[in-house]
């Protein structure tokens, strides 16, 4: 930790202030965590499989071949499914928000609108609870903490829909772009595609998560720079296990070999998982709460003719009146 302590009184012995860490940890374990993840991309890109692979559980209901029993929805639908999972004493309520129908129509104009609407509705729900006079001890959090955007592995460029969606939504939600079904490209093709995609994202001014402007300090920035340079991660998902070199691994079996999902030489799934779950999960929630939600709230409060220039709302007014 590279922070300096501003000089104050010097301690002449151990007191026990540092026990607050344990106290805090215990409290958070007791209350549990919420995490809401949204997946966006046209059908067939392996969204559900990826999420199930990430959380090693059937958290996302796979649309088992829509050609057979389900039709392509006429508009983009929003389907949120929640499960409680536990690991190491940590309880998490995970909500996976699926967006079937996105990018599947002939005319995909404005197909991001139902998604944008859903995201804002969750902010609105939270805001409503927050401004109550009598508030709940813990406001239920349904806000989308992370939106994984699946890029089709065409190998060439981003589609117009991709840039349109990401441009419009990157300011209201954390977007993590991934290259889906990475096993359809060779490593070289993958690298080239990644470079091209990153260049396009930069040119279009799309700030995906982790956003540069929210890096808190130099340490943060250097950690996040490494991640940003490796994004978008090229991933493969699978819920089937195979025997490889005496070990049971998750993979995809093809005639020419087994693609090992968690093998960093085969794809970048492990990197995505470590980044998303093991190091930045809490940060995703904090950026959503401290930045995206605050932006929504400020806009909303300004809309209703509130005092535009004055920072404090009713209290100053009341002091004037009474």
């Amino acid at each position, binding site marked *: 930790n590279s922070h300096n302590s501003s000089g104050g009184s010097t301690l002449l012995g151990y007191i026990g202030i540092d026990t607050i860490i344990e106290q805090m940890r215990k409290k958070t374990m007791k209350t549990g965590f919420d995490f809401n993840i949204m997946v966006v991309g046209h059908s067939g890109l392996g969204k559900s499989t990826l999420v199930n692979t990430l959380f090693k559980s059937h958290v996302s209901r796979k649309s088992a071949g829509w050609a057979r029993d389900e039709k392509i929805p006429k508009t983009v639908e929003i389907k949120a499914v929640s*499960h409680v999972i536990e690991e190491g004493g940590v309880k998490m309520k995970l909500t996976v928000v699926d967006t079937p129908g996105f990018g599947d129509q002939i005319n995909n104009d404005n197909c991001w609108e139902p998604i944008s609407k859903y995201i804002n509705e969750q902010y609105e729900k939270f805001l409503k609870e927050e401004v109550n006079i009598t508030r709940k001890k813990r406001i239920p959090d349904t806000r989308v903490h992370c939106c994984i955007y699946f890029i089709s592995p065409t190998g060439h460029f981003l589609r117009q829909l991709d840039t349109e969606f990401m441009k419009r939504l990157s300011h209201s939600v954390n977007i993590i772009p991934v290259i889906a079904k990475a096993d359809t490209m060779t490593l070289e093709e993958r690298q080239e595609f990644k470079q091209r995609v990153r260049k396009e994202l930069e040119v279009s001014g799309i700030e995906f998560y982790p956003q540069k402007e929210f890096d808190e300090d130099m340490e943060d920035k250097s950690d996040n720079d490494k991640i940003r340079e490796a994004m978008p991660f090229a991933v493969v998902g699978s819920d089937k296990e195979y025997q490889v070199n005496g070990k049971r691994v998750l993979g995809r079996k093809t005639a020419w070999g087994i693609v090992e999902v968690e093998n960093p030489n085969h794809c970048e799934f492990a990197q995505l998982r470590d980044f998303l779950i093991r190091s930045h999960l809490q940060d995703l929630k904090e950026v959503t709460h401290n930045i995206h939600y605050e932006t929504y709230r400020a806009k909303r409060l300004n809309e209703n003719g509130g005092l535009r220039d004055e920072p404090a709302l009713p209290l100053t007014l009341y002091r004037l009146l009474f």
Partner: protein
Amino acid sequence: IGEAVNDTEIDIKDKGVRPLSLAGHVGFDSLPDQLVNKSICQGFCFNILCIGETGIGKSTLMDTLFNTNFENFESSHFEPQVKLRAQTYDLQESNVRLRLTVVNTVGFGDQMNKQESYQPVVDYIDRQFESYLQEELKIKRSLHNYHDSRVHACLYFISPSGHSLKSLDLVTMKKLDSKVNIIPVIAKADTISKSELHKFKIKIMSELVSNGVQIYQFPLDDETVAKVNTTMNGHLPFAVVGSTEEVSVGNKMVKARQYPWGVVQVENENHCDFVKLREMLICVNMEDLREQTHTRHYELYRRCKLEEMGFKDTDPECKPVSLQQTYEAKRQEFLVELQKREDEMRQMFVQRVKEKEAELKEAERELQSRFEHLKRIHADEKATLEEKKRLLDEDQSSFSKRRAAAQLLQAQSLTANGKKDKDRKK
């Protein structure tokens, strides 16, 4: 991968949310660490309020608790009113940075009339809540960077009389118990004998209960600390002794107070409850104290304040709008009031102007008539003078005529005489 329901308890709120078992290690068990690391980066705030009579040992106890020498001022006993003095310190232990604020009362219990003694304390606590509420209500706010000054723990120092609580104590604690976590302590406990102390504690607790004073209860919901907290709840109020002086006992230097008849060791649990206080206040419940302040005391303050301002939770359909609507309505009222006052002022102004105008006109008229009067007088005088002048002129001209006539006569008579003389000479 199965979907078997495992038998961990389901959160009551999430009834209907299925639990799933995991087929392998996912890694979100690092979440508490991720959260804690962020808090470490930000640092922690802890604010203690010490209420007690002058000289009862508040500052010494703080020094002893935090093993340090805070700047201390000796207060006089002649303060006309109770004041509060807050001092903030930055402490660090391993990687934990703590911003500690110690607030002491000054002059508490020194006045003749102590009826209003509690008020400055209540005001201080409310002011911190108000500050937070103001920030929370801002349009552009930054709550996660906010330096939290709300009082997390209030140590109430009870005088070691050995008998019972003073009425000042009861009144003050009653006013504070819904605003702050109160932890009563018996100060200078080395002046009471052990048997007296036991009776004293029982008396105090029963007085608190019979007066309905809600002091802070160490929480029992977490099994790992429930047992020790239950025991500690039974030792309240803690009988403490503070000292920063060290005395050699055996082969160690310990914090103690040296008397001719013995040495009172601060950290000896047989001598006083100092260690218990430190355990409870810092090592076990510091986070709970902060949480209770935020989720209970602050929420109560906020609710009361907003209701006072006329906000209500109306129908569930329009929350932020209703806050805005009520606000808009109040704003309209305010603007109408403003307009009314403006009109009143304008009227008053117009009235004044009229009055002044009338005054000035009157003055002008007066001036004018005076002027006319003077003018007339002047004209009269002028006429008089001119008349005089005319007479004078007339006089003068008649005089000159007569003189001219006289001269002529004289001249004539001279020439006539001259002729006569001439004639005579002939």
